[in-house]
């Protein structure tokens, strides 16, 4: 098991379209046998990166190495990789089997042999009965399978997939995800899979590379990327977290740990202050964003609490609450609010809660239907969370570790 062998290596790749920089200083390596997902919003440069590997874009700077061979200036047909395109790009003038056999035909393999091989690949994707069909007669899912078989048929060093499932409906997409994963594990062909769908990336990937604005923000296995995001963008893109923007109002030495500084942060959105200990050099006035994920939020109906003085008393209430929170050694933040919206999402229910204090930020909590509290719009609730489970991001978006 030589898992260290890399099949794709990008080194300092930069791709420009005139004024626009699509990919900037991107370096990544894809290991043999793994499924690597490039994940990011549309326009982040992930497709351009894939096209650079395939040879359809030539980088302005940097190197592309495929299986130990530098291919930066080689044409697509001189590279041993194969692409599954977003709209599949099946040749409409050829039958299914001719499509699948096309790569071998170009390689000069005889007709009988390449047809036999193509049949094997059609069987791999369970499309053996469609040999003589024209692509126009196939459904989206079937075209997808043929595109996959056609790419696999050239036995590529690496298979490149450019959002291959984005044109399929949700259910078919989920089935195909599992099939692609299954084929990948069976054939052990390394794959670079571009998607904007984080669920798809988590379902498929051995490792994920999150891209934004032409940059690779973070690379890691799905658990690491999800549990330990290095950047505010990664955190916001991977889930539906609640972001609270705050500002550093004071800092001082931590009594217990000299390397760290105790920083006081105020979150005007919920009218609360917290103290965190961090090694980053945050100074008063710096912006700090807290990400409170729905899964760490505890939501319960307020025990018989009626709304305290609706007007006027807020200032006092906030002060009271701060006093409540700060000295609390259990490190729990507790806030009250009113349910502003209940959204049924099939298997889960999402609650929007308007916080009473501060500027009245709105937080969202999602619960599966079976453990959903019975709440309706207007109900008073208490929201609390463990402050240690919150992620903090500094003024430049980088993670502030606490």
């Amino acid at each position: 098991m030589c898992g260290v062998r890399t099949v794709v290596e990008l080194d300092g790749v930069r791709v420009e379209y005139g004024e626009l920089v699509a990919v900037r200083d991107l370096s990544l390596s894809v290991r043999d046998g793994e499924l690597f997902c490039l994940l990011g919003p549309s326009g982040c440069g992930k497709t351009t990166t894939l096209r650079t590997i395939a040879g359809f874009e030539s980088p302005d700077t940097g190197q592309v190495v495929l299986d130990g061979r530098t291919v930066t200036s080689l044409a697509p047909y001189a590279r041993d990789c194969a692409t599954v395109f977003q709209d599949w790009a099946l040749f409409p003038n050829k039958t299914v089997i001719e499509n699948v056999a096309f790569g071998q035909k170009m390689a000069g393999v005889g007709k009988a042999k390449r047809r036999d091989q193509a049949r094997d690949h059609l069987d791999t994707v369970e499309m053996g009965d469609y040999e003589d069909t024209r692509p126009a007669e196939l459904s989206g899912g079937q075209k997808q399978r043929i595109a996959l078989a056609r790419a696999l048929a050239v036995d590529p060093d690496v298979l490149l997939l450019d959002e291959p499932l984005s044109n399929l409906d949700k259910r078919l997409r989920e089935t195909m995800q599992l099939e692609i994963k299954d084929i990948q594990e069976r054939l052990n062909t390394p794959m670079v899979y571009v998607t904007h769908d984080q669920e798809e990336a988590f379902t498929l990937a051995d490792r994920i590379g999150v891209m934004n604005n032409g940059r690779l923000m973070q690379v890691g296995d799905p658990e690491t990327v999800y549990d330990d995001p290095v950047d505010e963008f990664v955190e916001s893109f991977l889930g539906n977290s609640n972001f609270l923007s705050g500002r550093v109002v004071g800092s001082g030495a931590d009594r217990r740990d000299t390397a760290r500084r105790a920083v006081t942060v105020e979150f005007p959105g919920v009218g609360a202050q917290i103290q965190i200990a961090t090694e980053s050099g945050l100074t008063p006035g710096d912006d700090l964003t807290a990400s409170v994920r729905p899964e760490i939020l505890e939501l319960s109906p307020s025990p018989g609490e009626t709304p305290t003085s609706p007007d006027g008393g807020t200032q006092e209430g906030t002060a009271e609450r701060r006093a409540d929170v700060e000295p609390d050694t259990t490190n729990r933040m507790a806030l009250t609010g009113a349910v502003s919206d209940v959204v049924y999402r099939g298997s889960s229910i999402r609650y929007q809660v308007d916080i009473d204090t501060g500027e009245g930020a709105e937080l969202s909590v999602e619960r599966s239907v079976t453990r959903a509290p019975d709440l309706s719009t207007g109900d008073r609730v208490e929201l609390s969370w463990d402050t240690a489970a919150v992620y903090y991001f500094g003024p430049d978006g980088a993670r502030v570790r606490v």
Partner: protein
Amino acid sequence: MSEEPPTRADGAGETVESGPTPTTAGSRFGRVAVGTWLFRAGVGTVFAFLLAPIVIVAVTSFGDSMVLSLPPETFSTRWYESFLDSSRWQRATRNSLIAAVGTTVLATVAGTTAALGVRNLGGRAEGAVLGLAVLPLLVPGVVLGSSLLVFLGEFGLQQTYLAVIAAHSLWATPLAFSVVRASLSRFDPRLREAALDLGASPTRAFVEVVAPNIRSGLFAAALIAFVVSLQEFVMTLFVSGRDTRTIPVLAWNSLRNSLDPVVSVVSTLLVLVVVLAVVVGSLVVGLERLAADT
């Protein structure tokens, strides 16, 4: 107007016979109908004027006398026979076919490669190339013909087939270019990329994937080039010689001295060939479309 909504709401408008509505609708229809008929009559007149000479030529070609008369006193295929017997006309027919085939090949290949090349230019460069490409169509044939004669004369190429084909291609290529370009704009460039990705060289990608998917455009381009060459007269008059002159040039030569009824025959046959080409072309392209849509 006020009566209309209730009738529609009923869903059974035909049973409600309300007084004013049909009359207003009727007069409005009447005015529209008169306009339509006037328009049709106008267009019909224009077409009649355009087509009349062709019909007259076709009818006179079946005459029996040396004098062109309409209608001919007696009908015969006498002039068709003398056309087939004439070595001059046979030669001109052969020359016309050689020029047309040569032009078809040259113009289609040049037009197609140009259309493929222009695709990736984009912006200002593409505009400049497009402008240059159609320029020969805007220059009078006399100017092109005389300058071609001087230019080709420098290389001793005047009066050769090459000269005729070059002259015809000057007009046929921009047309072929435009047709192929329009056809390529409907072609999904991902298909070509997929072919390259699977190991096809650019040439093989064109042969295997691009050409079959734009074949109706290529066919139309070739057809247009063929027809342009067949009917071109002005430039050919300058650059062709005794041995290379085409049907239109010989027809003009024959008519200079006297009205030769064989010219009617030749004209009729030329029109017939062009009409056939267009019919076949539209059938093929039409079937292609039909096949592509289903």
